[in-house]
């Protein structure tokens, strides 16, 4: 007989071990899917998870992809911790990219140390303002933030499309849907010659550190945690719920905006239609896999970044579509959420230890 009991306290070691279990189960699940599709599962997994990072260029690419993922996920952790479901980070990323890119285009024939900081700040501001739309509608009009933030993703995508096809398209670009190349001083400095890894990684690391400070060392962080655990307690304690909702959305939007501006001034160098391969959505998985914890999110962003690289490698060697990465991302989240069951429930095998009854 198996008996299932609710745990009274959440086991700390299991809390951080279940993500590892989830990754392990995802690999098994992936192997099964590859086998069914007629591939050699071991070889396919090797192409997916080992080949991409077996040289220096691959490792640099891993960090290039982890940089925005980690940054967005850190921002989202503020929202998710306080039970605010911002799932429109992709839109906030794109809008941040649009605002930052617009400023970069204004400065396209300027040189100076001040150009890049202005672009970065305006990008963060753009993302922040865009995230305030669902926040304000939620607080003052009682509107569901999941749907609003998501609808705004499509609005941002279409706005970007309009700009790069129409008014912002490169005058010397033969009508390609893209803007001018940004000037040198509008680009993130490259850290090593020949690799694409750029200074944006420092923005991410600083943000991680600041988030840790805010979440664990300030009154705001305390409010966020309490509101996440129990809204009633938060109300009883007299926390200003509305202000907090707007603040967490602003933080989250600013992070996504920073990620967007980091992409366009880093690896991309201009605006075009596809400035993000759904980083904003994938970062939701990163946030959960990292247990909404700043350090956890760093590790999680590296693992999820690997699924992007893996999908690219597998596309070349196995001719599978690039969306294959999403199969792995979805599975990671499935297994992670599922294995959380172990957190809250004890499985007891009755009859084995009679003295425990």
């Amino acid at each position, binding site marked *: 007989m198996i008996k*299932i009991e*609710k745990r009274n306290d959440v086991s700390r070691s299991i809390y951080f071990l279940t993500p590892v279990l989830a990754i392990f189960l995802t690999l098994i699940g992936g192997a099964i*899917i590859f086998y069914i*599709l007629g591939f050699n599962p071991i070889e396919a997994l090797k192409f997916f998870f080992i080949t991409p990072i077996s040289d220096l260029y691959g490792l640099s690419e891993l960090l290039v992809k982890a940089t925005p993922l980690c940054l967005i996920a850190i921002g989202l952790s503020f929202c998710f911790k306080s039970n605010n*479901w911002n*799932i429109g980070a992709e839109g906030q990323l794109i809008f941040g990219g649009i605002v930052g890119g617009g400023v970069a285009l204004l400065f396209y024939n300027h040189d100076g140390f001040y150009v890049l900081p202005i672009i970065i700040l305006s990008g963060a501001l753009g993302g922040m303002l865009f995230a305030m739309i669902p926040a304000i*509608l939620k607080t003052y*009009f*009682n*509107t*569901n933030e*999941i*749907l*609003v933030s*998501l*609808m*705004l993703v*499509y*609005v941002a995508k*279409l*706005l970007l*499309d*309009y700009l790069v*096809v*129409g008014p912002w398209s490169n005058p010397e670009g033969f009508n390609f849907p893209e803007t001018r190349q940004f000037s040198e001083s509008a680009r993130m400095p490259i850290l090593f010659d020949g690799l694409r890894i750029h200074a944006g990684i420092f923005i991410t690391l600083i943000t991680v550190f600041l988030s840790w400070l805010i979440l664990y060392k300030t009154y705001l962080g305390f409010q966020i945690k309490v509101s996440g655990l129990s809204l009633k307690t938060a109300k009883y304690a007299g926390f200003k719920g509305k202000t907090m909702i707007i603040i967490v959305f602003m933080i989250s939007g600013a992070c996504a905006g920073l990620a967007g501006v980091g992409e366009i001034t880093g690896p991309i160098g201009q605006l075009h239609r596809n400035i993000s391969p759904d980083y904003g*959505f*994938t970062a*939701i*998985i990163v946030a*959960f896999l990292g247990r909404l914890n700043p350090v956890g999110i760093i590790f999680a962003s590296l693992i999820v970044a690997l699924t992007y690289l893996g999908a690219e490698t597998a596309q070349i060697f196995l*001719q*599978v*579509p*690039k*969306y*294959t*990465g*999403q*199969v*792995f*991302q*979805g*599975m990671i*989240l*499935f297994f992670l*959420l*599922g294995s*959380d*069951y172990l957190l*809250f429930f004890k499985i007891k095998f009755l009859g084995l230890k009679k003295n425990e009854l």
Partner: protein
Amino acid sequence: MSFDLNFIGILIGAIMASSVPLILAASGELITERSGVLNLGVEGMMIIGAISGFALMVVTDNLFFAVVGSMLSGLIISLIFGLLTQSLLTNHVATGLALTIFGIGMSAMIGKNFVGIPGKEFPLLFLNLKESIPFLGPIFFGHSIILYFAFGLPFLTNYFLKKTKTGLIIRAVGDSPTSASNQGINVTLVRYSCILYGGAMCGLAGAYLSLIYTPQWIENMTGGRGWIALALVVFATWSPIKVLIGALIFGGITILQLHMQAVGLRIPVQLLSALPYIMTIIVLVVISRDSRKIKLNTPTSLGQIFYKEK
């Protein structure tokens, strides 16, 4: 522009056709939500339905198998969501998102070998009546059987929820799972059934796209319709008849947008394409502002995990 009556009839017919996937998916999700479960995986279940329907059509050369198969695969993939949220008590929002991400990836993997294959002609009913009756002909006739089913579904759903015992049980489970459970109702079983039904309807909605509306397989071909269907359920304040009205409005915007592009009005294409999304937000604001109205209809336990001590 000529405003002859027949043209308007054809236009209305086109609007009806484009609203079908929204009606099907939203009606399914409505039942799921009425039982207290918020499944954000609509987009993922639709795209899985789209590829399975198309793949089965190519492999078996039988449209009946394709349609039934798409419903079955929608049901199977929603079972993952059911297992996680109902048996393993996971968070509904996160699980639904995972389902959408997984579904889009999985459909692309399955669909790899089906890109570029032409679709099969789906039989349309009463084609002769469509031609012979001006104005009303193109509105009422010449559609696929799935369209007629979709337009009947909201009324059936309404009757089912309001007048049948099972419908009452579903609403009771959604409004107060604890008291329903105390009455001897198996809350988990009811919720499982509602999730699976929602999955099957989303699968059918996907198959309508890949078999009838644009008969071919394109990666990511649902293009956000699943999310609009989710918004529609809130838009309709969980009332099936209003789902039908909402779906027609959204279908109308889509078709209008295509026609305005064709006529060459000097409005950016992207603004027109953004209209359905902006409209959704505006409507959400208008209906949510009155919190009493929302509370009256929202399933009280929506999205909350139900756990019964054993």
